[in-house]
Structures are given as C-alpha cells and as structure tokens.
C-alpha cells in the first residue's frame, strides 16, 4: 500500500517537490489513520455484539433503550458510544504509588503491539497495508510485543493483583506463541511462502468436489492445526476460558486494576483489536481469507472484503460464544494444556502434514 500511495503522490504535481522521506511518512500516515479508525469501529461493534450475544445466551436483553429520555438508543445501539464518551470524559487517575513512566506508557505499548500487527493483514485482494514476503513471520513476531505492555502495566501499578496478572499473562502469552507458530508452520510448509496473499491464493479451487480448497479442509492434520491455532489464539488474547491475567473473580481486574478512563480504554481497544487479529489470521491462513466459500461465485475485491470480514466475524462470534459458556482454567492447567497437549499435537501435525503431502496427495 505504501508503494501505491507513493505512486499516487508522484502523479500529484505539488507533492513531487517534497523530499522522499516526507512523502513516505505521509503515505504511512494515510495508511495508519484508516487502520486506527477500523480498530475503533471494530471495538465498538464487537463490544456491542459481545453484550448482546452474551445477553441472549443468558436469557437477558442486554443494553436496551426504551421509554422516555435518551437511554441507549434503539436496542441499546448507542451503548458503546455512551461507553466511549464516558471513558474519554473520565478523570485521569494516576495513583500516587505507581511507577509513573511505566504506568503511563504501558497501555500505549500494549496498543502499539496490536496496531502494528494490522500492517500485514490482507482485507481483500488489494487492501493490505504492506504485503511483506514474511507476512506470517511478522505477525507472529509483532503480536507478542503487547505482552511487554501488560508486564509494564502490572509491574508499574504497584499492586499485588496487577503483578499477579502480569506474571500470569507473560507466562501464558509466551507459551501459547509456540503452538500458534507451529500450527502456522503446517500451512507454510504446504504453500512454501510466508506471504499472506500467496497463502490465500493457494487456497483457490475446490477439494473433494464440493468443499472449498481451504487449508482447514485440506487434510486431517491441517484441520487439527486450525483448531490449535484458533484456541491458542484465544489464549493469546486473554479471553475466557484463558483470561487468567484479568480473572475478575480472582485478581479483581488483573493487570489493569489500577487503570481507568482513557488509559483503560486503550487496553480495551487493543484487546478487541487482538481479538480481530486472531480471527483474521485464522481466517486468512486456514479459511481462505477473501476466497469465496463457493469457488467461482461472487468473487472480486469488493466481495473479497465481505468474505474476509464475514469469516472473521464468525470466528469472533465463536470466541464470544466460548467466553459465555466456559469456566476459566487455572494457571498450571493452562500451562499443561499448552505444553502437554497443544505443542506435542502441533509437532505431530507438522510431521503428519509433511507425510500426507508426500504420500497421500
């Protein structure tokens, strides 16, 4: 995309006089602003969806607006808007005993971690901020920057609960990086490329006559790999049943106990951005990204965006569904699940995919 903008700039006469560096920065900003807006809208929508879905699953109505006065709009549609206004207008509290520098910088580091991951995420055939040739590698590497933010938040808050949350989170995210990377590796083996668009393009066509040729259906091992990736992804973004860093019944609010207002909003925003990233990566790598579920039907870049977002939304729905169904695991059980179950199975998967590719297909 940067190249695309630079090319456009070269056609605008008054811009050509500017130095290349400034043009580059301008191009980057032009990309960053839509991503930021997308993140904000994503958080608004997902929070609203989460509230409504959880409410319906629990025989409730969720946010509703009825009767006199401006409640939360029809069906509570304005609830998240009201939330945002509240968060922005809240008093900015920095507790006296915190480590100020860390405390202030932590939410932004956490946010940056999820923000820069979007760079490599292809929304359709053309919309991708940077079509790296190491796309997957970049996502795996960058998405764990956020943990630094969590640790700083927990450490800087000078609160025992926060520290517990941060330590748990660090252990959890670092552990679950491994099954994520290993299950992505199965696809990389099949495609032979780390580039996101290449991976999606490899999922073109039909398999067994009727199923789309997505990697999740390709062979039994990739099928398992998809679930390992998805569940580990859920674990990596600290959602129930893996939400031990913020486990509200144990650690009050975990690493963001001391945060409120806008700083807390950044954690919130980043958390939902991470949710989208997990859903996005899983749908790109295993569910064909912008490929149509019925091959040859409704293709093109507009529909590509719809298919990609549709798949991502379905996976987000599943994550919400998980959250409102399951209890939470304990720290050691989380580790057991990762190291004793996911990682061995992921290794077997890699072997299996290789053998399957050699002998079966």
């Amino acid at each position, binding site marked *: 995309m940067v190249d695309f903008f630079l090319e456009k700039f070269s056609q605008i006469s008054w811009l050509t006089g500017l130095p290349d560096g400034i043009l580059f920065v301008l191009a980057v900003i032009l990309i960053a602003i839509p991503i930021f807006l997308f993140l904000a809208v994503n958080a608004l929508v997902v929070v609203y969806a989460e509230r409504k879905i*959880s409410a319906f699953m629990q*025989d409730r109505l969720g946010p509703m607006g009825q009767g006199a006065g401006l409640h939360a709009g029809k069906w509570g549609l304005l609830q998240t808007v009201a939330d945002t206004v509240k968060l922005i207008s809240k008093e900015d509290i920095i507790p006296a005993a915190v480590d100020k520098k860390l405390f202030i910088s932590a939410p932004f580091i956490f946010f940056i971690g999820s923000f820069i991951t979007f760079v490599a995420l292809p929304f359709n055939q053309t919309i991708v901020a940077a079509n790296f040739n190491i796309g997957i590698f970049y996502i795996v590497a960058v998405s764990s920057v956020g943990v630094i933010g969590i640790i700083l938040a927990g450490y800087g808050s000078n609160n*025992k609960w926060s520290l517990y949350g941060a330590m748990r989170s660090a252990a959890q995210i670092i552990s679950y990086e491994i099954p994520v990377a290993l299950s992505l590796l199965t696809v990389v083996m099949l495609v032979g490329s780390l580039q996101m668009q290449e991976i999606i393009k490899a999922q073109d066509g039909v398999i067994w006559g009727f199923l789309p040729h997505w990697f999740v259906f390709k062979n039994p091992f990739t099928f398992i790999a998809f679930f390992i990736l998805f569940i580990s992804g859920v674990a990596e973004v600290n959602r*129930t049943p893996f939400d031990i860093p913020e*486990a509200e*019944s*144990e650690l009050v609010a975990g690493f963001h106990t001391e945060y409120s207002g806008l700083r807390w909003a950044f954690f919130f925003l980043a958390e939902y951005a991470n949710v989208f990233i997990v859903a996005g990566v899983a749908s790109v790598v295993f569910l064909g990204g912008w490929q149509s579920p019925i091959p040859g039907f409704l293709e093109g870049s507009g529909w590509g965006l719809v298919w990609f977002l549709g798949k991502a939304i379905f996976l987000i729905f599943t994550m919400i569904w998980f959250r*409102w169904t399951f209890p939470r695991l*304990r720290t050691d059980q989380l580790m057991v699940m990762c190291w004793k179950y996911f990682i061995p199975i992921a290794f077997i998967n890699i072997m299996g995919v290789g053998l399957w590719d050699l002998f079966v297909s």
Partner: protein
Amino acid sequence: MGVEHDHELGVIHAEEMVLNVGPQHPSTHGVLRLKVQTDGEIITKIDPYIGYLHRCFEKHCENVTYEQCIPYIDRCDYIASMNNDFGYAVTVEQLMGIEIPEKVEYIRVIVAELNRIASHLLAIGTIGLDVGAFTPFLYCFRDRERILDLFEMLCGARLLYNYIWVGGVSHDFPVGWVEKTYEFIDYFEPKIHEYNELLTYNKIFIERTADVGILPVDVAISYGVTGPNLRGSGLRWDLRRDDLYSIYDQFEFDIPVGTGAMGSVGDCWDRYYVRVREMEESAKIVRQALDQMPREGDVHATIPRKIRPPKGQIYKRTESPRGDLGFYIISDGSPIPFRIKLRSPAFTAVSCINEIARGWMLSDVMVILGSLDIVLGEIDR
C-alpha cells in the same frame, strides 16, 4: 517481595507475600477478609478475618421479644431466611411444648425446601462464577427468581420473610399458590439437567474443582463442618433424618453424599454436586408435601398471644441449606429471651479454610470458598 540472593550457598531465599483478599473482593461472597500468605501462586497460610458485617444479633435479641427476634433472625442467613425462621420456631416451640397443626407443618416444610433450592441455586451459581463461568450463574438466578416470586406471592417479601412464626405461620397461602408451586416444580426439575450439561460435567469445571480442596471426614467433624459440606466428604448425615424435627419422616427422600466421582471424596466437585443432587431431593419433598398437605385448616390457631416460654434452656439444631443451624435459647420466663446463641454453619465452614486451602493456588482459594457456600451475614451475625 524482596528477593535476596544468598550467593554463598547458591540458593535464593524468597520471602512470602501477604495478600489481602477482601474485604472488598469480587468473590469473597460478602465482606470476608482473607489474609493470604502466598509463595508465588501457592498458598502457605490463610488467616480469615471476619466481623465486618457484625450487627450485634445476639445482643439485639436480648432486648426484644421472641416475636420480634424473627426479623433479626431473617437477616442472619439472608439467603435462606425461611430455614432460619423454621429453626428458631421449632426451637422455641420445643421449649414451650407447643403442638403445631398439621397444615402448618406442611407449609413450613414446603417453604423451607423451596428456600433450600433457592439457596443451593445461589451456591452453585456462585461457584460457577468463581471459576469464571458467568452463564450458569444467571440461569440459576433466573430460576431462583421464580422461587422468590412464589415467596412474594405467599408473604409479600422476597428475601426476608418473617413468615414462619412461633406456633404457626403468619398467614395462610393465597389462592393459586399451590398450583403455582406445582408449576414451578414441573418447570424446575428438567432445568437441573441444563446446569449439569453446562457446568457440572464441563471438563474445565471438573479440572478446576475435582481433587481441589479435599476435606477429609474426620477433619470436617472436628471443625464442626456440617450440611452439604460434610455430606460432600462422604458422611451420610442429615438432621432431617438423623435428628428428626417437624414432619420430615413422612417424605421419601435420598440423602446424597460425595462419592469422589471425579476425583477424591470431599473435594470441591463433590461438595458442589451434593448441592445439585439436594435440589432434586428438595423438589421431591416439595412435591410430596404438596400432594399430602391438607388444604383446609387454620394457621393462626396455635399462635399464643404472648410468647412466654417457661424458665429453662434448650439447644436445638435444624438442617439449614448450609448445615446444622443451632439455636441455644435460655429463657428466664419473661417474654424477652435471656440469651439466644446462634450456631452458624457457615461460621464453622469458613474456620476450616486454612486447613483445606493450604498448598493450593490462589485461584483455588476462590473455588474452595465458593464450594463451602458461606454467607457472611450468618458468620458475623
């Protein structure tokens, strides 16, 4: 948290961290404060501090008449007020030697068992909440709400009833109440299956509760732990059968005990599952009582104008949803009790937390606390 490196010996001496869980904490079920010493996530010692909700119940009772005690007793175990009143009424009646009409006994049993269901629903819902499952909690509250509706229809109050009086109940059940109760029981019995599907047999829930916080029988008895907690440890001990009061001998019901189906006997899962099973049994009792209850009859007949028990004292215990609820009442012959002591089952349950939670992780403390099903109103009185 100061970590001190002892280079000479090559070992690290790590200090233990003291963590205050509560008085304000999402899962202390009230205002309990646990001073927890932790070594990393592992608990080395728990020291419970209670009394944040102390309301001088026993002192109050020495200043009001026997009738006026009942609103205060309601507020002790505010989750199961009917059972509290029931216990108090039975105790004072035994002290006075009053015979109770049959219909009153049936009404009392029905409301007490309904309240037991309501209390257990709260217990299993909150243990779900403590392990992080939010949805079962709301399902439980949805059904508990219906019981509270029944009570509201019966006596106007939803939580603190003042319905069971010494010598009777405050008034007869309204028209249509019996049918509504039948309706509720018909609705409720299949719902237990839903809780089981959603929570009881959930693998994560089993992992979190089975083999955690094991309370052996001898420790339980020594700590005076009673009720579902003791039955969870495998001892078939239920005052409704073993120390009969009221008319519980007229009903067929089972006393579920912990069997260690998912782990060892006496773990959190057993305590939890005993409660689930007890709800079924209570529903059975309610159904039988509704079938057998005489529809006609006065409920006011035996209420004395002024309750004035003879000089003497009595200790009587009844089975509340949390265990043995004992009343020690000393009367000096006046209408004001000389001394009322309430032996609270939750008080004894929380006293043993150090014994059973030591060595487990911080997350388990909440589960153990949830599985003991404590009500701080009753502990602090």
